[in-house]
């Protein structure tokens, strides 16, 4: 077995009296598409926020490519190669779609403050390279025609795709996607799934994917972890998880589970 790229060990998070995560262990293999599913309030977003340094865990640790992330700031974690999207989208609403993606490419911009202040040698070339790179990513997620639109004015489905393009612009090794399929139509979900499979195949990206509707993610995931009330209740191949009685119970309630079992 290869060493996991991302290793979440015994993570616990409390908000006042609420235990949002309770001793969670998850290993994500390099090159995997790993799904985390669970009903509302299960702690899925909290887990992503711990990994990306937005929340501090009360217990446990996270390691990425052998490095401990615990004390790192969100920007440091991004620089190690982890990019993310947000459940309720966090775009730069007053900027165009293209500019949003160019922010993702900020760190690989290739010119310093002096060149920026003077628009001197290399400025135009570096800017047009950033622009072209951002345009390619918009193309990849299928919203190139909206490049000049203000991000805040885009419909929700496109905003989600823009977030994906912006995350990719940071040139990550791993993507954390918080419910990328929420609010999308069936055809859009199909397109998204293809993009994710393609990213894995062509760029070798490792993807951690959150959703609360099972059917969507099971199709493309290699491995699935199920959370409920902050605990891991099941983990395994999609087919195994789908058949797990605890999972059915968590999703459908006790009575339905019994109905299916009998």
């Amino acid at each position: 077995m290869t060493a996991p790229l991302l290793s979440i060990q015994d993570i616990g998070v409390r908000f006042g009296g609420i235990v949002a995560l309770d001793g969670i262990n998850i290993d994500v293999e390099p090159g995997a598409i790993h799904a985390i599913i669970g009903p509302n309030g299960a702690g899925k977003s909290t887990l992503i926020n711990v990994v990306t340094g937005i929340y501090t865990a009360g217990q446990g640790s996270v390691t990425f490519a052998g490095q401990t992330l615990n004390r790192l700031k969100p920007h440091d974690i991004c620089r190690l190669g982890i990019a993310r999207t947000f459940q309720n989208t966090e775009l730069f609403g007053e900027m165009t779609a293209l500019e949003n993606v160019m922010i993702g490419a900020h760190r690989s911009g290739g010119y310093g403050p002096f060149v920026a202040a003077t628009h001197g040698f290399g400025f135009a070339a570096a800017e047009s390279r950033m622009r072209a790179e951002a345009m390619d990513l918009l193309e990849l997620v299928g919203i190139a025609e909206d490049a000049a639109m203000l991000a805040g004015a885009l419909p929700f489905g496109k905003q989600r795709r823009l977030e994906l393009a912006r995350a990719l612009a940071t040139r990550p090794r791993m993507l954390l996607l918080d419910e990328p399929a929420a609010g999308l139509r069936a055809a859009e979900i199909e397109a998204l799934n293809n993009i994710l499979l393609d990213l894995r195949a062509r760029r070798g990206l490792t993807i951690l994917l959150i959703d609360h509707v099972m059917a969507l993610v099971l199709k493309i995931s290699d491995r699935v972890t199920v959370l409920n009330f902050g605990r891991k209740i099941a983990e395994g191949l999609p087919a195994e998880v789908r058949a797990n009685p605890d999972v059915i119970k968590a999703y459908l309630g006790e009575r339905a589970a019994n109905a299916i079992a009998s």
Partner: protein
Amino acid sequence: MTGKTLLFAVTGIGLFFALPHMLADFQLFQVCLIAVTALIALGLTVVTGLAGQVSLAQAAFVGIGGYGAAILATRWGVPLWAGIPLSGIVAAMAGFVLGQVTLRVSGHYLALATMAVTAIVQLAFIHMDDITGGAAGMPVPSFEIGGRALTSGGELYYVIVPTTAVLFLIVGNIIRSRFGRAFAATRQSEIAVAAMGVDVLRYKALAFAGSAFLGAVGGGLLAPLASYLDPMQFGIPQSIYYMAIAVVGGLRSPAGAIIGAVVFILIPEFLQAFQSYLGLVFALLLLGFIVLWPNGLSGLIFRRPGARWWGGAAR
């Protein structure tokens, strides 16, 4: 360089050399005053308009620039042309340190914290009376360059206007670069920009440093123009005055700082009869713009979405 920028540059330089022949010395003095005020307001365009951090510390940095340059000149004989940029650098460092408070405070609380800085710095000017002259203030030595003392508005014009123009160009360039985008993104979503690898605290502190530098250089150039410094020129009302200029002109673009400065410097000329109500006029202007036209005059004038740098540039 495109044809348009070339035309712009030629017109600007032509106007620069033509104005001294067209205007009286008193009017050139006012042009200088407008330029210096615009430079100070430009600091607020950067920190508040671009990076989204409300600052009511601008008068403190203006004071540091003015007193700093004047004290360096009277005590150590450093000429103003060197003392002004030096004071600017010191103010920038102070601004960077002040920017660290944004780790803990934002919004209204940041406004209050920066206001407190203005009050503290003003108290320092009053109480360090052996070097600042205390409440009575101190005279400013004249601006000497190449053995020549520049005293009148018409003479200082040749220093103040080009310095202002160069700093506006630099700020405009930075706004239209990856750094400007990172500042604007910080204003719009700190959580998202951090997830893009941008060190949010560092950028906010840099924005404060930049605004402090611009404020201090503005203050340093204002000093020989005013020829006398006293602590009452650098209090909380002045911080609010500079913010009002930036807001009325339009916080989102460097052009707004110029427009605001023109309006606020020229209005008193047209309202000679209402001198005692000036404070009220300014307050009403500020209130009216915040409520009715939050993008300021530049937002009203440059509505064309393509007018990036002069119009909605710093978004």
